[in-house]
């Protein structure tokens, strides 16, 4: 029951109705990405021709195993790691779970304290909460500033003698803020604690070097970088101990039982290889599109604010709050116009609560509710950005026409412009998207 439009036209092609201009513009690449053609082709080969079980000793198995190892080397390459440090998993969520649970179990002699942040993905936050409930961990949740940045000094101060692990995400999935990973990595190294980073959003989007960054454990997920869903990996620095989450056969050097998802892993490996080759080009193109979209929106729509850091953000992330409107209504209107965007994260199934990330940044709930995340991808074009800039301001205007609060704010602004001070104090979001 996928929409006919989706089947009929690729994400960026002109499609649809006679008369009305209609495009399909997919701007939800932080939720998931389409699989590249060559990746899908490579996977098909490992489904229909070399379909063996990588654990089998015969040649079907050997070819499957060789393909798995080649993929491991490719993923390792993009990390700046060694192949034997890469453990394939079913996705980023599993990698997050295992990195925290598995390292606490392996280093229980050191203590059970974990330092993390308030803006982590739920895969980290809910794992921590569960461990607290089970009595297996004590967790410190660090705050962030208005740009969603963690202060490395806060990390240093939070580390105790019984701290086993610091887990700070590389880049946030909602607002795209990139954390000062180098500094945090250095701090962890100095204090002798493990450093885990959830790099699900950043992997493939920006260059990596686990050594330079002082990373001990890192979660990544294939479907965020134009690879298949259902595959991810955990980087485990050589010499660091970790206990498995899933026991059974001796797969993945006894770190993750289960028949290897050979086509999935092959697809992930190729996607990583393509990301490595195209990295510079992607970063340049996406950053340009991103900045044009941000500038265009903030310039065209009043009472709008950029969420996240103005410069230290993922090349593809645009997150804007529009005052006096509900993000959900914006999304519905956009979807009708063929634009797929999101409010907050799609990773939280069907939740309508205001984003924990925006709240942690100190953004008032009513403004957080009006936020829209648009995340660009390699297939997006300048025309896509033009189309959004053409459609979105009108959508906001129509929705605001129903808002008495908006009318009041406009009147106040008009009075202010006329030199008369308004009665309304500064209550709304402040920094008007300074960039």
């Amino acid at each position: 029951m996928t929409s006919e439009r989706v089947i009929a036209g690729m994400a960026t092609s002109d499609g649809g109705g006679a008369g009305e201009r209609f495009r399909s513009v997919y701007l939800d690449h932080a939720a998931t990405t389409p699989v590249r053609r060559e990746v899908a082709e490579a996977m098909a080969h490992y489904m229909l021709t070399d379909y063996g079980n990588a654990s089998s000793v015969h040649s079907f198995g050997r070819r499957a195993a060789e393909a798995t190892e080649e993929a491991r080397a490719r993923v390792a390459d993009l990390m700046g790691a060694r192949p034997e440090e890469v453990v394939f998993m079913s996705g980023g969520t599993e990698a997050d779970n295992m990195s925290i649970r598995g390292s606490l179990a392996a280093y229980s002699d050191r203590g059970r304290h974990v330092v993390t942040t308030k803006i982590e993905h739920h895969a980290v936050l809910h794992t921590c909460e569960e461990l607290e409930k089970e009595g297996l961990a004590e967790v410190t949740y660090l705050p962030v500033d208005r740009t969603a940045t963690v202060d490395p000094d806060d990390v240093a101060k939070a580390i105790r003698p019984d701290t086993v692990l610091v887990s700070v995400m590389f880049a946030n999935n909602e607002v795209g803020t990139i954390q000062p990973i180098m500094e945090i990595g250095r701090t962890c190294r100095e204090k002798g604690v493990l450093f885990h980073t959830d790099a699900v959003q950043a992997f493939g989007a920006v260059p990596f070097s686990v050594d330079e960054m002082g990373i001990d454990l890192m979660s990544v997920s294939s479907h965020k970088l134009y690879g298949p869903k259902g595959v991810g990996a955990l980087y485990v620095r050589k010499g660091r101990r970790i206990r498995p989450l899933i026991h059974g056969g001796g797969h993945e050097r006894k770190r993750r039982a289960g028949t290897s998802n050979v086509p999935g892993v092959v697809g992930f490996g190729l996607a990583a290889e393509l990301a490595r080759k195209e990295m510079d080009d992607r970063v340049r193109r996406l950053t340009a599109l991103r900045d044009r979209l941000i500038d265009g929106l903030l310039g065209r729509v009043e009472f709008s604010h950029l969420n996240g850091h103005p410069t230290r953000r993922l090349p593809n992330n645009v997150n804007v709050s529009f005052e006096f409107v509900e993000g959900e209504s914006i999304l519905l209107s956009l979807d009708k116009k063929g634009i797929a965007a999101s409010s907050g994260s799609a990773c939280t199934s069907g939740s309508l609560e205001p984003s924990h990330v925006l709240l942690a940044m100190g953004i008032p709930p009513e403004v957080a509710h009006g936020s829209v995340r648009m995340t660009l991808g390699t297939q997006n074009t300048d025309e896509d950005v033009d189309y959004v800039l053409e459609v979105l301001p009108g959508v906001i205007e129509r929705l605001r026409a129903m808002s008495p609060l908006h009318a009041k704010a406009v009147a106040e602004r008009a009075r202010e412009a006329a030199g008369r001070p308004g009665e309304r104090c500064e209550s709304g979001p402040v920094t008007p998207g300074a960039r």
Partner: protein
Amino acid sequence: MSGKGEDRPTGGRGVACGPAKARRPGANGGPPDGGGPDTIYLDSAATSRPFVEVAEAVREIMERSYGNPSSRHTLGLGAAAAVRRSREILARVIGADPTEIVFTGGGSEANNLALKGVAWAHVRSGKHVVLSAVEHPSVIEAARWLESFLGFELSLVNPDRDGAVRPEAIEAAVRPDTVLVSLMHVNNEVGTVQPVGEVGRRLLGLKGTDGRRKGLPLFHVDAVQSLGRMAVDVRAMGADLLTVSGHKVHGPKGVGALYVARGVRLVPLVHGGGHEAGRRSGTENVPGIVGFGEALSGLLDHGPDEVGRRLSELKDLLLATVRARCAGVVVNGDGDTTAARPRSAPHILNLSFPGIPGEVLQHHLERSGVYVSTGSACSSHHRGRRSHVLQAMGLPEDVVDSAVRLSFSVLNTPAEAEEAGLRIAAAVEELSERGGRG
């Protein structure tokens, strides 16, 4: 969704007594098989070749309908609908309600979730689990983890010589503090069908009725090997939890599911965004799940009885061909699929040719294009270690060391089964002359 096996050529049925005849590559309607034109793939219990329609469905959803099911835009809703469809298909196949299906990253994960999830959730109601000694490593190792990490006690029940566990033996092992009994439907190495229905019935009488013990012990069935080949009905088995895996039924690797009966409490293994009704977080493997559903609906077109009949025919044909030429062949487990209530799954045949090491025969057969395995693929990493299944069955050493497993799928033809039988007989004859040294 059309039948998968229908358009495959049946091949010549004449008695092929000579050397292996080259067959048309790509006999399954897809691209050529990775093993070359002479290939006879008899290792479907390790993993089965995805149906062509499965690969197409996977590809379509990856390139075109690639949304995240949690997204509320059109692409996301489409992906969610596709997942729902597969959930309904699987539920129908095993006689469950769609809300009772939890998709996982495979059979091993589902087994881990069943054992650890139940143990965590009921840790204050008892710390004892019962399982057979011939379970898959993902059940046994998960249970060992319960032992070492949570202080559980395990009772491992040994099978008889034919690989079957007696229901009385399971019942006798159950204690007042047992929280879970885990028994596989079909053993992956020898194909023995366990009396899961009878065990389920007996456990029903032992379940607690109130307080902390209400509903305990729970009954978990690993049906990874039986799904799609035999009738799998969670109600008829009295199963509270049941594990299945996509890649054993011509679906994709990296996807499986756990059936969790309504009302059964379970602590998730993987926490996060609350997917799968909070029981297994992580962005759904949409292509995998869709491919799994597509594979099942392909098999569903035939019905398990028809699939089972065809597989039994292949198995019987191969066994008859070998038996006619090798008097010394030993059938491990109960090779009889013809009885009214078969004790042996239709797709697995485990044979020993005492004196010829299993690995040697396996390698020799590979050279003639016949792909088989020694024991399960999972234990092949521990080379030199003997099959825990055959040992638990109490078989003599020379039988254990010479065992090979042949496993069939609906993509095999009778001509292949017969030809494989001939190649096996020829290999055995040659190896016996060389004194088993390959």
